[in-house]
């Protein structure tokens, strides 16, 4: 278990600190900027997918395309470094922000397309 989970497990039920740590962990899992992990922490595909807010299938496609470096442990299991996952998350967050704007202004885009059509 990582350090965070160990600490939470040792706290009494309903403790304020416990709830706060749970919130942080949720944040970690959904990649909304709260992280206490170290850059060289090893990340499983399940955890990486959770951090990136995508399914494992989507993650494997990303790994197969070589977008996040990974190494193999044991027979086949893949592991990534937190720093690489974070870096990829940051790039994807940028894209998501731009994508949201694009979707909101689709009519404008269609107008521009019409105006520049031959």
């Amino acid at each position: 278990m990582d350090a965070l989970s160990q600490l939470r497990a040792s706290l009494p039920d309903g403790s304020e600190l416990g709830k706060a740590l749970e919130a942080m962990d949720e944040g970690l899992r959904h990649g909304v900027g709260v992280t206490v992990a170290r850059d060289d922490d090893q990340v499983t595909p399940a955890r990486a997918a959770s951090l990136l807010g995508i399914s494992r299938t989507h993650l494997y496609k990303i790994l197969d395309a070589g977008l996040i470096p990974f190494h193999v442990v044991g027979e086949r299991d893949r592991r990534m470094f937190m720093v690489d996952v974070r870096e990829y998350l940051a790039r994807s967050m940028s894209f998501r922000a731009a994508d949201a704007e694009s979707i909101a202004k689709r009519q404008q885009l269609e107008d521009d397309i019409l105006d520049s059509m031959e």
Partner: protein
Amino acid sequence: MVRDRRVTLRCLTDDLVDGWDDVDQHRRIRVLRSTVARCLIEEVRESKVAEELRKLPAISLLQHPLIRHFDGSFGPDYDSGSKESISGLSAPHWWKQKTTRWRGAATDHSAGGPDMVWLCAAGIRRAGDTDDFYQAFMRDVKRIGPQAFLPADEDYLLQKIDEKILALDIWKAKVHCAILALLGEARSSAGETHVMQFSAPSRKPSNRAIGELALSVEAIDVDGEEMCEVFLSAKILDRDQIQSVDVAVQIARAALQSDAESWHSTTFTDDAYAFSAIIDPDALVLAEELRVTGRVPERSQPAGLRLGLRAHYARKHGLVHAQVEGSSVLSLCGYWFVPTQDHTNLETCAECARRHEQLGIG
């Protein structure tokens, strides 16, 4: 031979002053004509004219008895032998158009374009009128020349914009259908990637690919129910056409799952992006119908991604600024969105509500 039927703007606003089934339509036509005039002097863009044009039916389908008659008399069932021409006028040659008390003059002269017929003048034959519409028309043509009645720059500009709208609509429909076809193929080969390329919207046919879409599907278990997840990658092949690629990808995504929030996106390889979502079961039905019948039902129209189905808590200040600028903000649950005014009646995102509460504790 069937010809394309159009009516000149001058005839619509100045000659056909009454007799409209819907008076509002005539008002909108007058607004359209003045918008076209402003577009001719480059005061407004063509897309502004398109906005007005979309509020009206096709020119030849406007609700006026003479226009209906005109549309029918040159339509697929027309008999070229039954046409009466205005004798005494040639270059161009004019056809008489008569229905009830309405009289009109139409021409298929090549000056109006190939395979075109234009209704250029109209009037009412009032009972007891000594001045026959056609006599008056002939007099005018002989005196000031046919140019005053033939289609003018405003008519050709409107025709061009009409064609552009049609080209864009057709292009969107093609992307929409192609993605459903791709989905049909992918379903029968789980995990396999199927690829399609598309060209830019244009009034002339084009084979130059500007973007590429690759799709694969996989069955996944969601709370005990078997659903289908799609993985879609979009690659930009022509950076100059990035806006068209953007719209094509939005149309493709919406065909698979119309709820914008259901999509998870990431960057992908060079100039490519990856998207995944649970496919809307209805999309699977449509894809199957297309595969079996070769046709997509009428109810399936190209559309954009649906926004704003849930209200979110934003993570930082500057909401008003974002609303004005159209820029996106990050919600507590991790979703990027552009804030809009009308969120009061929407259900709040459960995840946002939960995190908001938790932040209150720490």
